[in-house]
């Protein structure tokens, strides 16, 4: 691995924008296009939002982000120690949401999948969730 950063922050909504900015600034070294950078920012936003609103149900918790650069590849890992996902396959279906009353659209994982090259979700009920995403900068 050429380079990496690790950050952790309290699961507060105000930190969503910070997470996007930090990852985008770090990835900028690979000289991505504005579209590529926007893709990564959006995917990070989705993963971090999920950790804050679903994993911790708006209660206090910690969100961990690791961003690795390897050649032209960006890897972003977003991790929480929250409630976990019972059925990952179902959760990843477009439009599936457990919070329709909060007007969640159920499109978060679909956005991550579309905007990044790969998406892997590892989760254990009661233990937490890890989202691993990669994208090659062209």
């Amino acid at each position, binding site marked *: 691995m050429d380079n990496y950063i690790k950050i952790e922050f309290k699961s507060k*909504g*105000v930190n*969503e*924008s910070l997470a*996007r900015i930090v990852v985008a600034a770090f990835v900028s070294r690979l000289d991505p296009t504005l*579209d590529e950078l*926007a*893709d990564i*920012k*959006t995917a990070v*936003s*989705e993963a971090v*939002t999920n950790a*804050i*609103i679903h994993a911790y149900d708006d209660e206090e918790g910690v969100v961990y982000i690791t961003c690795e650069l390897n050649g032209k590849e960006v890897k972003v890992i977003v991790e929480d120690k929250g409630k976990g996902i019972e059925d990952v396959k179902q959760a990843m279906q477009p439009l599936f949401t457990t919070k329709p009353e*909060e*007007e*969640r*659209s159920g*499109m*978060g994982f*679909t*956005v991550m999948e*579309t*905007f990044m090259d790969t998406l892997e979700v590892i989760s254990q009920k009661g233990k937490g969730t890890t989202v691993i995403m990669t994208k090659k900068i062209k």
Partner: protein
Amino acid sequence: MKRHFNTLVVTLKGELDAHYAGFVREKIDNEILNSKVKNLIFDFSRLEFMDSSGIGVIIGRYKSIKAVGGKVIIVKPNRQIKRIIDISGIQKLIPVNDNLDEAIKKLL
């Protein structure tokens, strides 16, 4: 937020994520309730970023506007926001226009 007859134009700035969504939702809903507008235009010309939380905001308002027989139009989303809109499929329900004046005229 501005009113043109019975159309409410909501101009959003900055970044529409989950954190900002609640505030935006409340503001728009209050205005719809108080001013009894029929149609809604989301003016995204100054919005820099939106994630799927924005889709929830748009669909929620679309439902209440549609219930009173009104229309919703999205104006000038940037490329990133346009992609989110495309993925979500809402452009089948809500037209996207590149010109605010044109959108307002359409709803007159």
